């Protein structure tokens, strides 16, 4: 793992230039300027878009601000997918920066999950970790880890701290050397349809 550190860093620090544009239908006091941001690929939309919300809240009336949701060219963007996945899935061939439309009204309950707070995102993230570890280590490692270690993983992701995250993640990525690799490798395949499936 150590010799792949450059690759790990490149993966972690991957960014997508994004342009957030407020939907014209939204009622604003004055014209809202688009907000540009470099989004980390490994993170989740609702985790990193606080600034967007603040920016757009400045030009809106407070009573109109409901839960923020994003869509790209008509497709609502599911926040529980990582940002990199969303980009590669929907807009990998488009011109950069990636233009996302920000909505505050008409939350599509059928398409998207609600995200009231960061703890929801944390729960989703931790469940993914545990699922993966079941396949890798029969969930021994993740169960041996203490609560503070789980927290460290989450905080590393949330604050974009590579070393903090990988200090804990290293344990999850260790494999017994005599086997030369993991017996079972978890991966997920995403398709641009409503359903998604996870396989081994």
């Amino acid at each position: 793992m150590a010799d792949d550190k450059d690759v790990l860093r490149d993966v972690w620090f991957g960014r997508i230039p994004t342009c957030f544009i407020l939907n014209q239908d939204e009622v604003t006091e004055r014209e809202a300027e688009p907000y540009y941001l470099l989004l980390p690929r490994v993170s989740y939309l609702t985790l990193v878009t606080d600034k967007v919300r603040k920016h757009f809240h400045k030009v809106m009336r407070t009573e109109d601000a409901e839960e923020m949701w994003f869509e790209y060219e008509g497709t609502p963007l599911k926040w529980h997918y990582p940002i990199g996945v969303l980009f590669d899935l929907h807009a990998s061939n488009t011109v950069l920066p990636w233009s996302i439309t920000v909505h505050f009204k008409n939350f599509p309950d059928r398409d998207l999950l609600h995200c009231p707070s960061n703890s929801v995102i944390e729960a989703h993230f931790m469940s993914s970790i545990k699922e993966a570890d079941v396949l890798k280590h029969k969930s021994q490692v993740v169960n041996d880890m203490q609560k503070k270690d789980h927290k460290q993983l989450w905080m590393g992701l949330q604050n974009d701290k590579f070393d903090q995250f990988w200090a804990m993640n290293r344990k999850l990525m260790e494999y017994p050397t005599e086997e030369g690799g993991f017996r079972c490798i978890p991966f997920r395949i995403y398709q641009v349809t409503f359903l998604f499936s996870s396989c081994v």
Partner: protein
Amino acid sequence: MAAVTGNTRTVMTDSTGESQRGGRVLAPGRGGRSAETRWKRHIVGQLKHRDLSQHAKFQDLIRFYTQLLDRTTLTKGILSGSVRRPSSDSSISSLLHRNNQLKKTTGELAYQVVQLQQQIKIKECVLGEQHARRAEERRRLAGAFDARQELHERVEQVQEENGGLKTDYDALLERQRGAETKLREEKVRGGRLLEDMIHLKQQAAAHMNSRNERKSRAREANLQKELQTAARSKVTMDSCSSAPTSRSSSPNTADRTESSERRHRLFRSASVTSPRILSSIRELFQKRRGHSVSSLQEDLQRPVGICVSARVPERALHTLEAHEQGINAVRFSSSSDLLATGGTDRVIKLWEIRAGALTHRATLGGSTEGITCIEFDPTGLRILAASYDKSALLWRLDDSVPKLTLTGHSRKVTAARFSGCLHQVVTGSADRTIRLWDLHRAACVRVVEVASYCSDLICSENCIISGHFDSKIRVWDTSNSSAHKNAPLPSLQLMIDSSVFQSHASIDTP
């Protein structure tokens, strides 16, 4: 297998268990390290490309945009601040707040400035001290340099002096060598002169010898003539003639020979033994009469050899086994009818000389070691002998037991002599002393320390002459009345190459 490992790699890099990235080509591996590294490099390259195209380009742009946005909002806020009081108040208060903050910071900075100035002063003091120390060190260094210079000069001086001394020394050496060569030359010359002198003396002696020979021949001729005339003439017999009648030759000739004997005793034939020469010489000088029986007898038996020149004896007249071991001393008595011999066998034997032969008369014992020297006293009645047993012994003539033993020396006594007076004896010994003894008391009256051991000594009336191992002859003066008071002083010292054995003959010739 390689494809699976490729999958492993991609999923591992994506720890959250998410999908493959679109647009990434997985190299279908052939297995082996090169394939592994190749796809790795491929992946790395892809990542970098993505990073470049998506991230790096937009990074600065977005940053500047947000900054601009912030500034515009701020300015918008400030511009619109004049309309809305609370916001302006807030801005003023914020400004005041900022003002206070700035004042605080200036105060802190002023305090820091003061502190720093104090530190500067301290450092300057330290610097001043160091300068002072440096100056002092410089002075000391200069002092050391001067001292070194002085020492250098002194060294040079000393070297010059040494050079001068050396030249002096060389000059002296040259002179010494010159002097040495001159000395050698002088020695050679001296040697040559000595040879010449000896040669001259030899010539003179030869001359004298020839003269003496001529004279003797002349006298012989005269004698012959007289004999012939006497033979021819008739002479009446005299009753006082002492010649025995049993001789074959005529009494006249006996008479004549006797008279001529007396006059010409010196001119004996060469066949005379050494004691006879000694005795004859002694007779000549001391005017004593000795028995002439044997000499007359010989002359009568050989009428031819009457007067011939005196020569060193060549062959012994008589040989006798006298002692069991070596003989060290032989002495005639003063009346020359007794011979005493002594040697390693610790006895002295007395011999009477009769008819040309020695007959044993007496043996004197009493010494515990060998005899070194024998002397008869002037009366001929006592014999003094020196012995290896560190004593000198005195016998009466016919006593076989010594009358006196003089002990006192610590080593062998080499010589014992009667001194000028009858009752004093002088002994010389190997213990480097010469002792004077008084015979009446049989005690040593004086001890004289000499530097070397005395091998022989003789006495005359006023002096004692001793010969020593260190090649010196010492002459001691005993002429003053009481020998106690005066130390006999050496009055003559001769250097001779080998040790000297003195004999009467050499001393008594003037």
